[in-house]
């Protein structure tokens, strides 16, 4: 049946979904399994749940050691402090605020770098001009579980004798440039937030092959340094609880299933949005965890801006998100630094204005995806009518 304006919820039609469906639907392990493990914990078992989770994560991530922490932001703070960073760290402007905030908490200045318009991430060419004598590290972000040019960034950093580390909060379970995500750089931080593919409610971890770094991180997290200890490093009591660790262990067990389910939803979106003018779904190749369904909205082709599309979809109970909006360079406290230098962020601006994230996760069925895509297609096809109706209104 051909859609008309009255089909759309914004014009009196029935919403595409019966209840609001947000971005970031959770992947929850089975409740019965969680109850069994919690009973074991209260009965005196599972006391080493955090250590068990660290070992299992290390196996899954293909890395020698993993150190768990309260959340991903805290893990980034700890890592920057443990690496002894000073001065400046180069970070992308198109990322979640915590990437830069964690560096500021650790006492280093995040220097924002524009991103490549196609990959949406740092490239060696963009980073190179920003390296100065004050630069102590490069912090790449594997956005959407894609590779943030790890080979090129490491080559650049090696030539300048500074480390590269990665915010891999999107990349648990991903293969990047043919290797597990955690095998790039001196260390990588993963998030175990409730909306991530492995879920411990909150939580994060640092993966590294450097045993000394891992020992320092554990010392920071678990104990307080004393006067007779040689390291002059910040401490932060930031352990993951046994309850969180148990949830994380069960969720990690489900990782292959969740990736497969995510891929099924991603393919449904790909099929459903195929040929919709101005909506370009971000392509995920093999080795991705398919946790993020992201597209770019080209207003010139689609006839509606990204924000107009989001507003119309919200009326349909499809609650989308402007991920990383408006870009770190426009957020306090970093906007001041940007105002006082001459660098521009054209690609970050471009992406922040066009990027849209669609709902995915356990609670989103293939049928939901089909309905969402049909309604997006209808909205785009009716865009000129919508504009006219809005003008007349």
């Amino acid at each position, binding site marked *: 049946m051909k859609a008309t304006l009255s089909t759309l919820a914004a014009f009196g039609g029935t919403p595409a979904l019966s209840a609001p469906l947000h971005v970031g*639907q*959770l992947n*929850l392990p089975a409740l019965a399994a*969680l*109850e069994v493990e*919690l*009973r074991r*914990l*209260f*009965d*005196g078992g599972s*006391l080493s749940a*955090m250590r068990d989770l660290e070992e299992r994560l290390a196996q899954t991530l293909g890395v020698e050691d993993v150190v768990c922490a*309260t*959340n*991903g*932001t*805290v893990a980034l*703070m700890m890592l920057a402090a443990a690496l002894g960073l000073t001065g400046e760290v180069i970070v992308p402007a198109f990322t*979640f*605020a*915590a990437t830069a*905030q964690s560096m*500021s*908490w*650790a006492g280093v200045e995040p220097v924002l770098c524009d991103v490549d318009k196609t990959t949406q991430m740092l490239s060696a060419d963009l980073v190179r001009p920003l390296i100065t004598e004050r630069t102590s590290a490069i912090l790449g972000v594997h956005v959407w579980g894609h590779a943030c040019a790890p080979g090129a960034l490491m080559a650049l950093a090696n030539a300048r004798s500074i480390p590269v580390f990665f915010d891999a909060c999107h990349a648990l379970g991903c293969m990047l440039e043919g290797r597990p995500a955690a095998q790039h750089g001196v260390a990588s931080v993963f998030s175990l*937030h*409730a909306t991530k593919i492995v*879920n411990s*409610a*909150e939580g994060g971890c640092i993966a590294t092959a450097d045993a000394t770094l891992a020992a320092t991180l554990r010392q920071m997290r678990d104990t*307080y*340094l*004393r*006067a007779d*200890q*040689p*390291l*002059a*490093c*910040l*401490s*932060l*009591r*930031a*352990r*993951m*609880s*046994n*309850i*969180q660790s148990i*949830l994380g262990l069960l969720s990690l067990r489900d990782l292959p299933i969740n990736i497969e389910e995510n891929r099924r939803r991603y393919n449904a979106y790909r099929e459903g949005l195929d040929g919709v003018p101005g909506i370009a779904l971000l392509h995920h190749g093999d080795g991705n965890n398919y946790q993020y369904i992201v597209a770019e909205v080209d207003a010139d082709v689609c006839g509606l801006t990204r924000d107009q599309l989001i507003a119309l979809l919200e009326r349909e109970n499809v609650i989308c998100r402007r991920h990383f*909006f408006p870009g770190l360079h*426009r*957020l*306090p*406290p970093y*906007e*001041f630094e940007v105002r006082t230098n001459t660098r521009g962020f054209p690609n970050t601006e471009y992406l922040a204005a066009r990027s849209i994230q669609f709902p995915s996760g356990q*609670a989103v069925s293939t049928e939901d995806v089909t309905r969402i895509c049909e309604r997006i297609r209808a909205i785009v096809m009716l865009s000129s009518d919508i504009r006219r109706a809005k003008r007349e209104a």
Partner: protein
Amino acid sequence: MTGKLRTKQHLEDLAIFGGAALVSSRHKIGEHLDLEAFLDSVRGIYQRRHLTNNGPLVRELERRLADRHQTKHCIAVATRGLALSMVLQVRGSGRSGSVLMPAIGSPELPYAARWAGLMPVFADVDQHAQVLDLDDARSRVSLDTRCLLAVPPADTPDWADAAWAFARQHGLPIVLDSTDTLSAHESASRRGSRGDAEIFSLSEASGVLGVDVAYITTDDDGLAYTLSRQRDFNAAGREPTDLRGPQVLGLNGKLNEFHAAVGLLALDQRGIKSGASEDRRRELFSLPAGISLATGSQEARQDVAGELRLRLRVAPSWVLSAAQTVELLKQEGLNAQPCYPLHHLAPWSAHATALPVAEGIAEACFNLAVGASDRDLHGLASLMEFLGARRSEIAARMATCVQ
């Protein structure tokens, strides 16, 4: 402590010499929480599919705690260290400078200052109450001082007023680390409303579940709003560029729903203790010669989780040092901690000035938290009696072990 008590008959029965610990981890599990009630909460969390991000249990916990403290606002935070760092960062206005704090307190205090971009400056403590010596603090206030961070005593409510007046006199904000004043059997009146903000922790409520539950109380509407935003990456909803001051640094300080459930159950199950607990302690448990309660009031305090917190002082006649006693008690599975002389912690130790009272306290005192049940107190009394009776032999053997 549950199960069979492991009373000590011989030196070899002490855990430090290879015996079984008085308190095993197994026995601590679930002691503070009703498993079935917790599982009910877990089922609710699953049903709502809302595990974090300011969920309903976090909001309920905040309401309950604000009511309990009779404060306008309560902001739950994932850990005590993050709560301290957040308030110091906001009250320091994001500038460099220093935080004046006592030299005896939780090691989280100076580290929180550093995370907030500020340097700790330590002042000596009062011999009697073992809290910040305001006279010594006065001599250390400088143009660089951004904030006063104090640890109020539980048993001298007027002290916080004096410290607050001191801060106002110097035009400084004051933040109170009130975790150790959180006492279930005393009146909660005004605790939570003092200074710019007070920090509390329910971490002891969790036993070995390893759960941290911290919270900030304040009557300052603006500060509460700023902190609640700061806790969530300083995000301000759909239009993230509005509303925020440029000096506030966001982070992830969110408490998750499982930990909020633990906090709520701790309040339900252990939160309201009768004022008779101290009398009961006195009846069940007296300290042997050579070891005594350290602070002026001679009162042990019962925290919100139902544990007794004691600061103990060893006399020369105890023979064992405070550090040795802590080690012995830790090996028995008890929660014993030295009194940290904060100015001796790395990296500040290199610049430490002499703080004689604090150093004396660190040398002779330690902290002990124990369950408040009759069984817990009997167990502790029995152990302390054994240590007192055999202290010289124990000290000699410990010295041999070190050699």
